[in-house]
């Protein structure tokens, strides 16, 4: 058998095994979430009776029967799991819509926000980290590291409010909230520009914390690599400094950054509740929070499921990509 085929088979075997594991992890998470949610006081029927301003045992029983809450817990779990396996995430009686519809309606907004924040923080984090390492001990290094420490330590909601105060209210440069201009009925390119404009503040706010982390991570990693012998050799050979940083140091320093980025990517779905709240961003974080308050179990479980699946998927992809980032890593070994 040619060597290449052997490696491909090994990769395929690796992917299949990881997928099988991922499947069981997700199912495990679903079961755990289902059981954990039962521990919270209150159920959707009690909350809905409360909303209605009155209620009696008969009314509560009627609601519970409609939600399927009157059945024994194992039966409820079995019904839910069977639904999940056939792609049915249940029905939100509160919103009176299928859970999958509710989630798919909100998922794009969250992915747009968190995806842009990921790219923003990676680009600027690496850039500032490299500059700080390059100018180690200088004014630029100190300034960058001070900024990184500041944004690492600042609570997100405070950054968000201050950003709104400065850029929206004082300067009037950027919209303070919403995903697009409501009532403008824009289409095509004008709408894309409008959304991009509304994205700036939430993306920067959400991205600043991670930018700070990437900056510190990149700087530390770069400094470690730049002290190694092969860098000294390259310098001795007269390779220009910029080339050393780009081709030699950064590539070798990238592994911890990549690892952290894959962790951040796992939070693409559920990691922006605060930002979505302050900026009235119509994402999944708000859906989850509202569902929690109203004990809308099917919606909560659906969001948890999608979040867990995202974490598992991103981890899988990251594991596969490690070999490209650092070919010394042999998967499945």
């Amino acid at each position, binding site marked *: 058998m040619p060597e290449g085929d052997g490696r491909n088979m090994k990769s395929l075997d690796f992917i299949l095994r990881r997928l099988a594991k991922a499947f069981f992890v997700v199912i495990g998470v679903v079961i755990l979430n289902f059981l954990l949610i039962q521990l919270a*006081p209150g159920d959707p029927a009690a909350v809905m*009776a*409360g909303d*209605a301003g009155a209620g009696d045992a008969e009314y509560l029983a009627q609601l519970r029967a409609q939600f399927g809450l009157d059945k024994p817990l194992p039966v409820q779990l079995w019904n839910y799991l069977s639904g999940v396996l056939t792609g049915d995430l249940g029905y939100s009686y509160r919103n009176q819509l299928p859970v999958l519809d509710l989630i798919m309606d909100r998922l794009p907004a969250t992915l747009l926000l968190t995806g842009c924040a990921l790219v923003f923080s990676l680009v600027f984090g690496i850039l500032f980290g490299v500059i700080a390492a390059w100018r180690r001990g200088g004014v630029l290094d100190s300034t960058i590291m001070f900024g990184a420490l500041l944004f690492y330590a600042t609570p997100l909601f405070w950054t968000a409010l201050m950003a709104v105060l400065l850029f929206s*209210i004082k300067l009037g440069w950027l919209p303070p*909230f*919403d995903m697009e201009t409501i009532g403008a009925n824009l289409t095509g390119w004008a709408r894309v520009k409008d959304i991009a404009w509304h994205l700036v503040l939430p993306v920067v706010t959400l991205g600043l914390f991670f930018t700070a982390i990437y900056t510190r991570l990149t700087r530390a990693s770069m400094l470690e690599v730049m002290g190694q012998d092969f860098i000294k050799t390259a310098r001795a050979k007269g390779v220009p400094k910029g080339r050393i940083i780009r081709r030699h140091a950064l590539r070798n320093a990238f592994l911890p950054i990549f690892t952290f980025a894959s962790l951040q990517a796992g939070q693409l779905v559920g990691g922006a509740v605060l930002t979505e709240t302050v900026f009235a961003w119509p*994402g999944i974080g708000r*859906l989850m929070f509202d569902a929690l308050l109203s004990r809308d179990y099917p919606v909560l479980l659906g969001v948890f499921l999608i979040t867990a699946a995202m974490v598992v998927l991103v981890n899988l992809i990251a594991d596969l990509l490690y070999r490209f980032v650092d070919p010394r890593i042999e998967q499945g070994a």
Partner: protein
Amino acid sequence: MLQRIRSACAVAMAVALSVTPLSAQETPQPGGALNMIVQPEPPILMVGLNTQGPTLYAGGQIYQSLLTYGKDLEPLPLLAKSWDVSEDGLTYTFTLQDNVKWHDGQPMTADDVVFTGDKFLREAHPRWRLIANTYVESITAPDPQTVVFKLSKPFSAFIYSFELSSFPIIPKHIYEGTDYRTNPANQNPIGTGPFMLKEWKRGQYIHLVKNPDYWKPGLPYLDELYFRVIPDSASRAIAFEQGTVDILRGGDVEGFEVRRLTGMPDVENSVEGWEMYSPVVFLEMNLKTPPFEKKEVRQAVMHVLDRNFIVQTIMFGIGQPADGPFAATTKYHTDDVPQYPYDIEKAKELIAASGVNPGDYTIRLMGLPYGSQWDRLAEYVKQQLEQLGFNITIQAVDPGGWSQAMSDFNFDLAFNFTYQYGDPAQGVARHYLSSNIVKGTPYGNNVSYENPAVDQLFAEAASSTDPDEVAAKYAEVQQILVDDVAMAWLFDMQNVTLWRPKVRNLIRTGIGLNESMDEVWISK
């Protein structure tokens, strides 16, 4: 012989006179869009299935009820143009408006009203179901314009059962024979109101547009309504300041923001438009839990809580100290009741007289999960009760946890507030009737108060057809309840509405912004 006859003309005249003088002198200008905030985002807009504030606010533009109520709580025509009450108080006959159509073009008739009261709400609406099962013998439609409610026994507050949150008219042709909760029309509501749902982008906005076939000729004035979803309180204040929204409703922003925003130029404000609801905030003391079964201890609690301080400092001056179970704006309220002025020494004397050693008790105090003012209130009550020697633990809960604990009577002390719906029999008696010591709702007799005299007085007042007799019974019941301190009533809640002066004729009735905004207009 008819006891009361209301003619549409007379009442329409009364409504016209009740509007602000400025707008009365001006000619309404049609057109324009009104921007508001709906907070929190309602799960649905179908007011027959969800009667939360946000649902009523947006859904009230889509659905309508038979009657509405003035700021003085007088019933006013809406989908019913007139009504008669028989002298024995057992027959209510409503005549419907002409040419009312559902948003899908079908005519709205008396059959829809019968379906609403007899089928839909009896199944899905716990408050109506209680009234219907207790009092309503039959609902019939002798002709397409007439509906007759026959009661099994007189109910003096029955006329207050026809407000939007209690009796929204539901289209029979859409809901009959279906599962009400999963009917697709819940997502595309069909009502008779001045506005129709155009688009709902969940998490962003609800967009309503003018109903071109609205039954009031020439109305509504406005073309569009936007109910925007802005989850953060500070962002909502910014939205109003920047002119993104034209109206802030009570509860949209925190109390300290209300004070700041009312001081801004070009901002109108009013506490009117809540008379029908008149929420009273109270501290429920579980009478099944020692030491609150002792009257002296409850009286001591009243004396140790400075209700003026609560209103002025914690609630930023928004509200009125309460003197009893009836809000000052609810019918039959009297202030001729025992008084409990702020007096710590008196409170200590009462505790001593009760024989209770406060140090023996660790008491749970359940806060309300609605923001910082409620947290401060819980901290204040804890601090005051600790002055009497009690050990108090504040329980932080979310709305689901609060609902469950209240419904199961699993609390020692808990804050609550409820709407009074115009008449004590609708919104007050439920907290004190021994027959209402029923688990399953946070809004019943959750403290387990039992007093046969109170039961009898409430029953007699509810079944009397003589207004003077009703007033006397309610005066007596207030005196007993306040003497007993069935609860510690803290304050009558006020909700401040803020709006830009260009918005005219905004608050016209006792249900305020839940009212159909058909006569609201924007000055250009």
